[in-house]
């Protein structure tokens, strides 16, 4: 019961955030945190719960972003129309990539996903229909509210919050379902899971497809907020890396891990970029690299796992004999 009270308090704080921190920079920061939290939570399904470390999730992110911008640029439709299209395309791509690569041992999957992401970036960069190196733009002047082109970050903040809530509910529901149990078993020992009759390949594939679809929604929202997508912002490998690091820093395989990771790393990046200017871009990723190495070395479970352990130790202490 107390857990739900805390959850409601946290939710109230998140809803109140843009009114307390009301400068455009702070509101935009809040929106970006939520946006990356959506992407990282989506990654968490395959990377955290299933333990299959995808480094190519940017393919799905880009798929959503290009679908949203393409709907406008080629058909004059609202970018919103691109969301289901991007979702469907991402799920299909995930199936095509997933069938061969998910059979492979962990490292191969990771490396294969990098190769897919790089291949996608190179193909898009050389495809005129997708704007080649220049990319695609959204509506410069919104025609109506369905173009989702706002000057203030406030509407985006609440839109992203709703999508994040949906993503988390789906994840929570999945983790409690039969699929979630299978995934945990596979993560611990795939061989043992298989020998007990868990359909490992199929379950991993379904998790990958779900994760891909949700990631594409994050990509579409990103493109709508920024009003354009190009190969670097939509398909650069660094986006994959950011998504992965946020989830791992907060706690891979934990429901709120990605949100915690995003809430730490997005402000770190935005503030250091604001302070250091263009020169900061390099330094930010040096810090990213150092953080990720330190987590891997000392706390592979992420921050939330550490917090949970400390909390349970404190709670457990009086009961100890």
């Amino acid at each position: 019961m107390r857990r739900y009270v805390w959850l409601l308090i946290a939710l109230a704080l998140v809803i109140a955030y843009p009114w307390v921190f009301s400068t455009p920079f702070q509101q935009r920061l809040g929106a970006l945190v939520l946006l990356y939290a959506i992407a990282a939570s989506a990654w968490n399904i395959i990377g955290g719960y299933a333990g299959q470390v995808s480094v190519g999730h940017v393919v799905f992110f880009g798929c959503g972003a290009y679908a949203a911008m393409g709907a406008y640029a080629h058909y004059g439709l609202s970018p919103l129309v691109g969301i289901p299209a991007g979702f469907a395309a991402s799920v299909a791509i995930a199936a095509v990539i997933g069938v061969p690569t998910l059979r492979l041992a962990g490292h191969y999957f990771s490396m294969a996903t990098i190769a897919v992401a790089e291949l996608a970036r190179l193909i898009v960069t050389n495809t005129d229909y997708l704007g080649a190196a220049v990319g695609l733009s959204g509506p410069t002047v919104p025609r109506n509210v369905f173009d989702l082109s706002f000057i203030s970050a406030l509407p985006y903040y609440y839109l992203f919050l709703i999508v994040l809530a949906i993503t988390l509910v789906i994840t929570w529901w999945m983790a409690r379902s039969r699929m979630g149990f299978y995934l945990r078993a596979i993560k611990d020992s795939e061989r043992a899971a298989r020998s007990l009759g868990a359909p490992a390949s199929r379950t991993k594939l379904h998790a990958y497809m779900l994760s891909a679809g949700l990631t594409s929604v994050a990509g579409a929202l990103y493109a709508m907020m920024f009003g354009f997508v190009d190969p670097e912002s939509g398909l650069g490998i660094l986006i994959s890396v950011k998504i992965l690091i946020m989830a791992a820093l907060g706690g891979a395989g934990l429901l709120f891990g990605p949100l915690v990771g995003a809430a730490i790393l997005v402000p770190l990046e935005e503030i250091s970029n604001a302070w250091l200017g263009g020169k900061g871009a390099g330094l930010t990723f040096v810090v990213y690299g150092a953080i990720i190495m330190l987590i891997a070395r000392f706390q592979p479970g992420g921050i939330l796992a550490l917090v949970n352990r400390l909390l349970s130790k404190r709670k457990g202490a009086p009961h100890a004999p």
Partner: protein
Amino acid sequence: MSFVLVQVIVGGLLLGAVYALFSSGLTLVWGMMNVVNFAHGDFVMVGMYVAYVVYTLLGGGPLVGAPLATLLLATLGIVVYFGLIRDIMKGPMLAQILGTFGLALLLRYSVFWWFGANFLSLPENLVGGTFDIGGIRIQASRLLAGVVALLVTLGLHLLLTRTTLGSRMLAVAEDSTAAQLMGIRPDTMQAIAWAIAAGATGLAGALIATFFYVVPTVGETLGIVAFVTVSLGGFGSVPGALVAGLLIGVIESLSGYLIGAVYKDMVVYALFLGFLWFRPQGLMGKS
């Protein structure tokens, strides 16, 4: 069969020898410790920048640059082994991937921060001239790089198969507890393996810096090349990496010449994915 085509193939073989050299480092570490170094390509990149500094700022030639890059990178390899790898290799796979990926970012963006994102290139005439062998024109820098890389890769193979040190390392790879009972320190052997693997990337980096583009993100491309090479050649096998490296060099050169330069990376990635589709069992183990 024109001279140009032969020239392209020879160029591919020479570049492929360098691919083989740094890929054999990856395959050694992977085969011995079952750790995949996602920073491997970035090690090569650091080697390139070390060479760049020596060649341009310090005024030294490849004779200074190549050994220096080898030594510095070998030292880096040892530091990385004791500082990071030794601990994460016992951890979950996520930790391994994250740890080496973090290292890759750290190296890539330290260089980016220091040197900027611009493409650097070395003076054309650093390794002077072009040879003309029976109508086939080969740049001296590429010839030097290819031949040295080929010899060192073969030397590495001999080191692993014909010397006591090599036998000890293989013993640790086979069964580290048993090796320990025989009086071999796994820790030392694994540190040596990291020194060799990283030293190979340093040398490879210094060799290709004379004709390749030098940019902080080059490690990403080279890392994938190394991975493709190791996957094709079978993990843990230096001769396999050699054959696969040469093959990839030729495929890349030919596709660059026949289809267009922008497509050569695409061909390699597509080849890799195609290989994963049709022969995953060939990748999985030593069989």
